[in-house]
């Protein structure tokens, strides 16, 4: 993954699960979760996923003339909404909708599943939802 792709990934994941008074996707370790998955279960989707990140960046340059990671949050969200619905401004080598669904679902998996899998550091989402707050461990 290039530095640019990593910056795009971080910014995009934080749009998918943004920080508020609980951490966003990146701070919660979703990047670690994905890195592990692209070495194992999702190895066959790695190239596809990176092409999607390139697509996000290309949309940012085409529509706003800036790197995706440098855009205002509302412009980032606008780009992602268009990718979600397939209404992209540039030519994509892969399906933007399928990429977007993969990005959102894997972000949720990293954020809400076991901390041992790389994301959900400190089981923060289990505290946030109340899953681990109540009842026996």
């Amino acid at each position, binding site marked *: 993954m290039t530095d640019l792709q990593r910056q795009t990934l971080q910014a995009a994941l934080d*749009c*998918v*699960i*943004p920080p*508020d008074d*609980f951490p966003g996707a990146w701070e919660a370790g979703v990047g670690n979760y994905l890195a592990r*998955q692209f070495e194992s*279960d999702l190895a066959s989707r790695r190239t596809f996923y990176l092409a999607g990140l390139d697509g996000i960046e290309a949309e940012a340059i085409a529509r706003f003339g800036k790197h995706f990671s440098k855009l205002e949050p509302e412009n980032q*969200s606008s780009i*992602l909404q268009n990718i*979600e619905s397939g209404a992209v401004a540039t030519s994509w080598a892969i399906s933007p909708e399928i990429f977007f669904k993969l990005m*959102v*679902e894997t*972000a*949720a*998996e990293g954020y*809400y*599943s*076991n901390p041992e*899998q790389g994301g959900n550091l400190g089981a923060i*989402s*289990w505290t*946030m*939802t*109340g*899953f*681990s*707050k*109540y*009842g*026996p*461990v």
Partner: protein
Amino acid sequence: MTEFDAIIVGSGAGGGIVACVLAEAGKRVLLLERGQPLSFAEVGRDHLRNQRLAIYGHNAGPDLEGNPRVFIDPLGTKHIVKPHELDYHNNAACLGGGTRVYGAQAWRFSPDDFRMATKYGAPAGSSLADWPIGYEDLEPCYERVEWELGVAGDGAALETQIPRKRNYPLPPVLPGPQTAALRKGAHDLGWVVSPVPLLINTAPYNNRAACIGCKYCVGFACPTDAKTGTQNTVIPRALLSGNCELVVDAIAEKIETDSRGKVVGVRYLRHSSTAPESIEARSKVVIVSAGAIESARILLNSNSTHHPSGLGNEHDQVGRNLQGHLYPRAYGIVANPIFNGVGPGVSIATTQFNHDNDGIIGGGMLADDFIKPPIDFWYDSLPPDLPRWGLRNKQFMRENYTRVLHVRGPVQDIPSPEGRVTVDQSVTDRWGIPVAKLSGTTHEETITTADFMRERAVEWLRASGCETVWSTRPELMLSGRQHQAGTCRMGHDPDSSVTDQWGRVHNHDNLFVVDGSLHVTNGGFNPVLTIMALAYRSAEHIAKHIN
């Protein structure tokens, strides 16, 4: 070659009980299990790889590689599917079978579940039929399962719907805040409710500890072994008798017959060895208890000169009528948190709508749900109009994970002969054995019933204080999965059934099927208690037969 009285293929709900009854009756039993015994640690608590949510794998077998099935979708397209994929219709492959990782709801079927065709008439194109036995035939066996294995529940609360002679041996699970909300809603609607009966020790029983209320019942193993399966009850008893030899990692290739077509034993492979060796074991009786899909596969793969289309398949009935349960479901938000984090989570049910619904065939039970891990909730339970990402999604998870009431339940499938298991000679598993091919759907009338039950779920939630309620219409599909049933149905007529009322395959005197395959219809309830009760009934018959 060692000769056994009985060889049993599969150690799940059916096979485990048959092994115990026969071994304790002094019969020499060989119990074959394709999986392995799995410890609590081996089953683990992976939220993404378990028997309930299996995105990247699962935790109770079979292995993802080397065990394909073929799935024919409604458009006729052929797919090769892996064990953790939905269209595989997996049930766990390990010692105890599905009972190792199930949720353990322990429902009796209701009396009308055994006479569906008489009560409602069979819709055109369906294979709806009566059972060859009635509730009263099975009632003593239900009671035996409840007391020998240990079911927790409140028999009096269910009495008007499902008569019984004796209460459950264990008290029901404790109610939680969600129970109170749903109880009040049902009361206002005038609906009958009861605690959900469970094969879970709510107090110490059978020398095993009580439930500690952890959050991991369905899809996982129990940390205190309070959840009851065949692996921690009847199978240890069978082994203790000294009459049962258990072989795990054993893949049944075929049932062997002699030159006259009579069943003489089972050929199997030990798959853990580097060069699997084919072993033939001989017995007086063979009992197939591999689950509705694999039992049909074994019979169909056991073809010979005398039985060119497989065993018991002279009338093209083996593998037909595959059914499970569609699960209508609804969700709603209550004002104050109703999540106390104490498992199992499923606590209250209504059996108000299992039968006698105007213009509807059958019905089903509705209950709240087992505690869902957050990622399971995210995939399964969010409102369809909620954005799948962004701050609103995250804040919904934060605010409402503890406020969502869940209601769902199994509806009585209306079986179709076209929902079926065959074998695909062109696709084999890693041992070269042709795999199961699944095709068709349940009968379309099932959707009418499922949608009626979905509306009842919505009604219950609204009456229980939910202002916002969401639910999607169920779709017609093949159902099977953990509740798979029906593929070797019992009956009096060999033209339209595979076995007699004891599970004995027609035209054979020593070949039996004992698992969900026998179910003519699958009730509007989780099927395990019925599988177990039938297993006791068949096993006592088989024990006498061997004499």
